[in-house]
């Protein structure tokens, strides 16, 4: 072998040995943290720009605005959580929007009818949650079985079920908003852990909404509404499930190399069914919470959120080809969309601009994701042989 060939072989060996140059390390680091940085810079921009453009009349950095943003991300985030699992396993669930709608209608009907039949309020609300999650999970079960057992592409299956679920949701709601829920439901969807009242005579109130009126009421800030707390609990559970358990590990394995997962004895079919049930179930919780928030069930509530939720997942760095991603990324993705939307509205920018900006961010996110392969010097698709 010529000396040059030996040297080339040695160089390949070193480059291949998992040792990265400082430049590669820096590039990788940036590609991982850009979403955090983008969120931070964007928030800083709005904090500075909103008061400037409104002559100090409107502020971005307020307790009320922070809570508005948290409330706004609840449905997008819940749809995105289950979707994160599905996409990491190299699938896609296009039915989550209409599943959320169906769950909203189901929970409204369950709460109204059980309460009318004499059930106390709290059990009726719990029944509403069960109806929403069970109805949604059933759709997820059908999705999963057709995808895993009948080998129909996930895109097609979930597209089909989303139409079916849409029809069912409209039929069940009789093409109108489900109203007539007990008035007490409103508290579950809008009351909070903490109430802050600023100014003279103000204070901090826990759990119970203080009886206020007039100027005092206008000074009251609501901290951590129940839907936000419940969503936070689901986020914590999803993080645990994806990153700390065998279920999560198998999800990554299936997305990384389905064949290897099968040959390692992972029950892949059963796992895929569970993933689509999970995706539907978190969407079911979203539908339930929207019913509590509006004291009504609606068949049109979920559909517009589908694409936003997938955008949140992609901005959060989950690879559409499967095998990589994190729950915290989806949370950041949802936050970026919500901060962007809220900020632009406060800047009095035409609301339609948010779509243009979100769309750009989605594409940039994928470009950054792909640049990682470039940095590592491996061909597209990530698998070097």
């Amino acid at each position, binding site marked *: 072998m010529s000396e040059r060939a030996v040297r080339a*072989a040695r160089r390949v060996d070193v480059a291949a040995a998992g040792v990265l140059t400082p430049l590669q390390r820096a590039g990788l680091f940036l590609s991982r943290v850009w979403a955090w940085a983008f969120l931070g810079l964007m928030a800083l921009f709005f904090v500075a720009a909103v008061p400037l453009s409104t002559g100090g009349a409107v502020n971005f950095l307020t307790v009320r605005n922070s809570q508005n943003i948290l409330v706004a991300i609840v449905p997008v985030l819940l749809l995105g959580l289950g979707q994160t699992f599905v996409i990491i396993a190299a699938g896609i669930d296009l039915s989550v929007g209409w599943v959320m709608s169906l769950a909203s209608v189901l929970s409204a009907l369950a709460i109204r009818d059980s309460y009318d039949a004499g059930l106390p309020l709290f059990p009726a609300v719990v029944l509403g949650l069960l109806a929403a999650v069970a109805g949604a999970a059933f759709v997820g079960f059908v999705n999963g079985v057709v995808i895993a057992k009948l080998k129909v592409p996930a895109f097609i299956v979930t597209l089909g079920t989303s139409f079916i679920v849409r029809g069912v949701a409209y039929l069940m709601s009789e093409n109108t908003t489900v109203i007539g829920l007990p008035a007490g439901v409103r508290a579950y969807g809008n009351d909070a852990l903490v109430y802050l009242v600023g100014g003279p005579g103000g204070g901090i109130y826990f759990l119970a909404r203080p009886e206020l009126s007039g100027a005092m009421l206008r000074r009251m800030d609501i901290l951590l509404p129940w839907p936000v707390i419940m969503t936070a609990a689901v986020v914590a559970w999803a993080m645990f499930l994806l990153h*700390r358990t*065998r279920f999560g*590990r198998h999800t*990554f394995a299936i997305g990384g190399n389905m*064949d*290897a*997962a099968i040959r390692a004895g992972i029950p892949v079919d059963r796992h895929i069914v569970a993933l689509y049930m999970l995706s539907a179930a978190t969407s079911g919780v979203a539908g339930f919470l929207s019913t509590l928030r509006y004291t009504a069930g609606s068949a049109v509530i979920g559909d517009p959120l589908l694409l936003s939720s997938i955008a949140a997942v992609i901005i959060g760095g989950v690879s559409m080809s499967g095998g990589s991603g994190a729950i915290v990324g989806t949370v950041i993705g949802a936050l970026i969309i919500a901060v962007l939307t809220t900020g632009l509205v406060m800047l009095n920018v035409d609301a339609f601009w948010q779509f243009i900006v979100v769309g750009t961010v989605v594409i940039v996110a994928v470009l950054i994701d792909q640049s990682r392969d470039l940095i*590592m010097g491996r061909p597209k698709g990530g698998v070097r*042989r």
Partner: protein
Amino acid sequence: MSDPILSIRGLTKIFGGLVAVDAVSFDVRRGEVVGLLGDNGAGKSTLIKCVSGVHRPEEGEIRFDGEPALFASPMDARRAGIETIYQDLALANNLDVGANIFLGREARRRRLGGLIQTLDDKFMLRESRETLDSLQIRFPSLTQPIQTLSGGQRQAVAIARAVYWDAKLMIMDEPTNNLGVPEQMKVLELIRTLRDRNVPVILITHILPDAFAVTDRVIVMHRGRKVAEKATASTTAEELVQYMVGARDDAAA
């Protein structure tokens, strides 16, 4: 000499009208590296797939560790201790070394009095490191996704996985294909290490230097039949080539 760990008698596999494997018999003993040689289409892979539970032979007997062993599936073969490393390695490139060695058999810890179980990554990392150390495999990092590793290193991960789960027989299908020269050397070194640990290896290859580098015995197949079985030390490359191309045939004599 010890009893054979694997004993094959009169194994025949037919696809339609084609006799892919024709009444092949041979033994593999503990601590022995047996080369299975032959040109493309000689029936090496089909023979091996009968052993590892992928194919069911039409005729013949396979005994593994003294027991009849006609496995219904690759999982059954693996459970019995036959690990087959195919060229695609069956690794999840997005996971780290420990996760791959424990893929499908993850170690878990009970928490909150057994109410929930979490992955025991520390344990899996420690066990992986020990296994790799015992095989004298060194990686700069065990916690990076293995797509950052080279082909030879991933080959080593697949071997380490088989070793950790107590493979009693290792079958390797062309393991040095698609590897650079230094990497080929490492893989061959690893096969020697396996033999020193008393793990028998069947090495499927058509590369004669590889066969001479590590095997104790070679079996040559041609058109589905075993045409030669030689101690590696008592044969030459020239002779083996003649068997591989069908110019010589011990079985016909």
